[in-house]
């Protein structure tokens, strides 16, 4: 019989796979939320732009609420609110919904900025050439507006990707939660946190750099 009992086991290769799987989950939940949130955000941004006084009296304060309350509180609130209205959601669905709305709230302002970035005379000119409202939107506003706000949108998307770590409070095992589980077992916090941090960094840093580069090139 062994003289001492060891409760903790070392860091193994399997654990790396476990972390990898969790990283995929992080990518999945943030990818879905960013995609859905952006679509919703563009819609809200358009409403904010076209709705004028009505939208700034109704939609804007609502979106503002999502930006003024910590995401973690929003997650806990919605997770506990869903059963009250009779929805049974798993942590993934719940996290996706909250992150989507959160992304939309952030992206709406960005999208409105994009529409505002297009000079009004330019749009009048396109309408004078006989373009319909939607043709003007698609062929004139979109190409110029998207270019103006792309770096800001990348910032929002990366922010949501990083904030997706908070979904762990609902029990969804994404990268940071997985690393916590491993830390509890292996008692090697530094190594595991370094791996998890390196993953986020490797994802975020090149994209941020790329967006900076684009911003510089387009501003010339």
């Amino acid at each position: 019989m062994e003289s001492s009992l060891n409760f903790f086991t070392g860091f193994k290769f399997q654990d790396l796979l476990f972390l990898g799987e969790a990283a995929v989950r992080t990518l999945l939940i943030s990818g879905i939320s960013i995609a859905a949130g952006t679509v919703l955000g563009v819609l809200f941004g358009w409403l904010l732009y076209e709705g004028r006084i009505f939208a700034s009296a109704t939609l804007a304060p609502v979106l503002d609420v999502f930006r003024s309350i910590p995401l973690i509180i929003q997650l806990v609130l919605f997770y506990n609110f869903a059963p009250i209205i009779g929805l049974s959601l798993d942590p993934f669905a719940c996290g996706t919904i909250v992150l989507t709305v959160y992304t939309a709230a952030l992206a709406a302002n960005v999208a409105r900025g994009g529409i505002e970035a297009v000079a009004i005379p330019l749009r009048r000119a396109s309408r004078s050439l006989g373009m319909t409202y939607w043709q003007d939107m698609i062929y004139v506003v979109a190409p110029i507006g998207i270019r103006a706000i792309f770096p800001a949108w990348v910032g929002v998307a990366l922010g949501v990707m990083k904030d997706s770590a908070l979904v762990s409070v609902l029990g969804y095992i994404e990268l940071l939660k997985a690393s916590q589980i491993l830390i509890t077992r292996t008692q090697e916090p530094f190594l595991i946190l370094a791996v998890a941090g390196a993953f986020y960094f490797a994802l975020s840093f090149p994209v941020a750099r790329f967006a900076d580069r684009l911003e510089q090139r387009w501003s010339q």
Partner: protein
Amino acid sequence: MDYNFHWRPVFRDLPELIEAGLVTLQVAVLSMLIGIVVGIVLAIMRMKGTAPARWVAVAWIELARNTPALFQLFFFGFGLGAFGLHLSPFFIVLSGLTFNNAGYLAENFRGGFQAIPETQMRAARCLGMTATQAYVRIIIPQVFRIVYHPMTNQMVWAVLMSSLGMLVGFRELSGETQFFASRTFRIFEYFAVTAVIYYVIVKLILGFSRVLAMRLFRY
């Protein structure tokens, strides 16, 4: 819908929640003040420093900006434990927030410094000021005017980020709420009230910063 809302326990604990809100505000303000100082130093190090100083600044800034705030808190909370350094929950949150704030603010300050014409510095030096005097009296006041708005935003972010203290056992507004909620199982009610308190805090900060801006930037 067969759920009965019970708001009474929440209102009973409301004074304590508001007190916890002050703790949140306190840690956010403190992390902001230290973050501003460190941020200025990092920005200058990144622009004017020697190679090693520049690397330190770049590493700090990019790590703070490209990893989740929660990761940074965990790092200060558990990661440093590997070196036998165990911080109290208050210092975990304070150091994590300060690290994050300093990284973001450094980039704001760098933008601000670059917006000041070189000639300002030269003119100040010509008038016989030392480099430090020139920075403190001429450059930094102008930079503050440029970064005032981003700084306000960062302050709001600091308040929102401090809610992560709940996950490292710090009893600020969120942590306190969780404590009460798990005692009474009125999770929704407690967190709803907490959400309102956060909203009020954020609006107060924005209002205060607007009034302050009117006082500071009259000319």
